[in-house]
């Protein structure tokens, strides 16, 4: 596999994606931690999780978002952090898409309580962010794409 051309530009792209995604996740997590009851209500309105699990999700998910965001911004556990971010975004997109398809009227709850009703643009937004996270994952740490050019690579 060839190294991508303009490697420093590539690195800059990864870095900017990390900061954008990380900032979004830190913000989203902190807003939800600030008002767990509102977030629990938003989760319940998705009508996907059984009611018994709604509060547990509302207690835990924001902290997972904060950790994923911190991982992206600070660069620790970067492969895991970017994979987790991509996975979360995939879950969000599927949940939103599922409810849109079912015709459930929903406010996102993505950044605390937002009044706007969810549209397919929200799913698109999550999908784009998910692609960015995948990009970061691919080029995080020791890129497997560089192994072919490297010495040995046992």
């Amino acid at each position, binding site marked *: 596999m060839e190294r991508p051309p303009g490697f420093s530009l590539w690195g800059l792209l990864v870095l900017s994606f990390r900061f954008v995604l990380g900032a979004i996740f830190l913000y989203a997590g902190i807003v939800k931690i600030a008002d767990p009851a509102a977030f629990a209500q938003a989760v319940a309105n998705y009508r996907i999780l059984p009611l018994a699990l709604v509060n547990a999700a509302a207690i835990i*998910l924001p902290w997972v978002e904060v950790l994923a965001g911190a991982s992206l911004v600070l660069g620790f556990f970067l*492969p*895991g952090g970017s994979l*987790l971010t991509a996975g979360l975004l995939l879950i969000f997109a599927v949940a939103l898409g599922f409810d849109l398809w079912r015709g459930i009227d929903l406010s996102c709850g993505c950044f605390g309580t937002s009044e706007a009703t969810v549209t397919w643009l929200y799913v698109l937004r999550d999908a784009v962010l998910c692609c960015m996270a995948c990009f970061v994952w691919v080029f995080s740490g020791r890129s*497997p794409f560089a192994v072919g050019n490297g010495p040995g690579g046992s």
Partner: protein
Amino acid sequence: MAVGDAIKDKVLRSLLQAALLVVVGALAGAVFNTVRHEGLPWSSTVPAPGAEGAVPSVSAADAWREYRKGLVQFIDARSAGEYEAGHLPGALSLPVEQTGELADRVRIPAGRTAVIYCSDPACPKSAQLASLLSKRGLTGLKVMPEGWAGWYEAGLPYEEKGGG
């Protein structure tokens, strides 16, 4: 071969790290929720529609009968868009997502029962709004579990924004 191994190694390492982040996040969430002033109970506080101890419910047919006697004020817990597309006669729009200040301005005309509804029997919004409003001191609340769908299917009259 080497590339395949490297990718496998990276996937495993990533999964392990991601799992660790989730576990630490769950622990942090649990600890913070325990020590914070107003932590959430682990089991849901939102009463399920029709659950024991929830606000009493009323059927669409009974609600319509009471409404014609002037004893009912309908409250629509759905979004503003759904409300505008069609709502029960004389209903107040009170989307549960934005009840913050709106809820403080709710005035139920004297002698009327507030009957709260959302889209269908499975929707949680009417129960949420009922518990929210009763926490704010409103009494005489009822929930109509059949919701907009049941009302519409029963062929009962409704209003549209602009359409009268």
